[in-house]
């Protein structure tokens, strides 16, 4: 055992223990760590986004633009925008970004909706096509598979998969009462869904225990110097 003398590790270790103390019951140590965490993360996110996004993606290109230059140097002009080099047009996101702060001032707060509207518009567009391609068409395409593959085992798997997929889809069918053949299919569907949830349960257990292992490894190795 070779306990560290690094102050930083001591601080981390104590904060880790403060949070673990919640397992016994809610207490002032936990509350202290929790509030410290919220404060530090809010501060860290703020400054991180300022230095790594607002500064290089907005402020610097704008400065260049006002000098008549751009990130692609071969054209001059404040408004000489092309793909990837938007020059002074970046004023627009700058203004929309600042408008977000009108939320803090009651009366003109509605103006922040303009910024919101722009963000939502972009994401709605990207997500709609992203889901349509990656999770809808591409997934349906991958489901079109030969049901007889030449070997009994893999054919069984392919048929099982197809039946499971169709029945699970039918479980989420709301235009008919689940009676008769549809009732049977949706019942089979729910069985497949349950196996899926069981697998999910197992993997979630794995994740959570891993996190605990990670913290214990930190405490044992970095702090106490064991192993």
């Amino acid at each position: 055992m070779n306990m560290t003398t690094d102050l930083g590790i001591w601080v981390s270790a104590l904060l880790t223990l403060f949070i673990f103390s919640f397992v016994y019951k809610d207490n002032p140590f936990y509350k202290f760590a929790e509030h410290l965490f919220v404060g530090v993360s809010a501060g860290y996110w703020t400054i991180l986004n300022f230095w790594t996004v607002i500064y290089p993606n907005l402020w610097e290109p704008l400065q260049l633009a006002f000098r008549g230059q751009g990130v692609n140097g071969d054209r001059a002009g404040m408004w000489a925008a092309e793909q990837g080099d938007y020059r002074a047009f970046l004023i627009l996101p700058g203004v929309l970004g600042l408008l977000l702060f009108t939320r803090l001032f009651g009366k003109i707060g509605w103006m922040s909706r303009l910024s919101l509207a722009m963000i939502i518009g972009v994401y709605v567009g990207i997500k709609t096509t992203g889901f349509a391609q990656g999770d809808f068409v591409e997934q349906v395409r991958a489901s079109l598979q030969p049901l007889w593959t030449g070997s009994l085992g893999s054919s069984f798997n392919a048929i099982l998969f197809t039946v499971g997929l169709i029945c699970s889809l039918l479980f989420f069918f709301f235009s008919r009462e689940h009676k008769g053949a549809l009732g049977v299919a949706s019942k089979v569907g729910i069985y497949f869904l349950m196996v899926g949830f069981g697998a999910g349960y197992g993997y979630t257990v794995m994740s959570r225990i891993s996190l605990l292992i990670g913290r214990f490894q930190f405490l044992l190795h970095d702090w106490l110097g064991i192993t």
Partner: protein
Amino acid sequence: MGFWGFLEGLDRRWIFLTMGILVLVPLIWPIALPLMVTPPVRGFVEAIDALPEGSTVLMACDYDPGAIPELVPMTRTAFRHLLERDMKVVVTVLWNGGPGLVDGVLHEVAQEFPDKAYGVDYINLGYKSGNEAVMVLMGQGVANAFPRDYRGQDSRTYPIMQRVSDYSSFPLLVSLSAGYPGTKEWVQQVNTRFNLPMVAGVTAVSAPEYYPYLQSGQLGGLLGGMAGAAEYEKARNEADSATKGMDAQSLGHLFVALCIILGNLVQWSRSRRPGE
């Protein structure tokens, strides 16, 4: 009252304590249970091994400290794997909490390779807000989305970035992700749209969700959670923190399984007890 009654009235803090001890003990006294490399992990390794030497690989590290035990070992092994095969590596981070952590891991591994230089053989482009918007924007130029790297230098001035224009510069995307935005979004926005093959390493919580992508070929390989990381280490003949954690992981799983079974036995014994 008897045994079942005793179990039923048990304060749950005893369960917490047992769990803690079961995870702690094998970390101090390892058992070294044998590992087996499963097909999704093999797919991950083979995808990287199949790349032509000297390729430039995009490694998207989308996680924060909450995923250290699962994703840091993967990042470490994958980065080492890529450097050993003389690949150039471009790293991006879309999670707020990630950049410092990822930088630390890259730094640690790069020290094992004295002939590899920052900006020449690998670069950390750091964090960018905007999730999917960043992914699509990179399709028109990686440096457009990341004008400066993690260190605050102009990213266009690095030699490695001379080789990188957009996604067509990469033969493979290695996505290490803990949730949103992450592997799912890379698949939706980049994999098919920009025709960029992908492999992924993810937290166990989200791993089952990615099996459909694995079956469809959208993902070439998958590392799920700490077990996936340990198998990857085994496939690469390393034995780092994930491998060392596997004994504790095993005991933890056994204990949870036992809890499920005992909990239900308690319930049945109560329903069979007369007078209730």
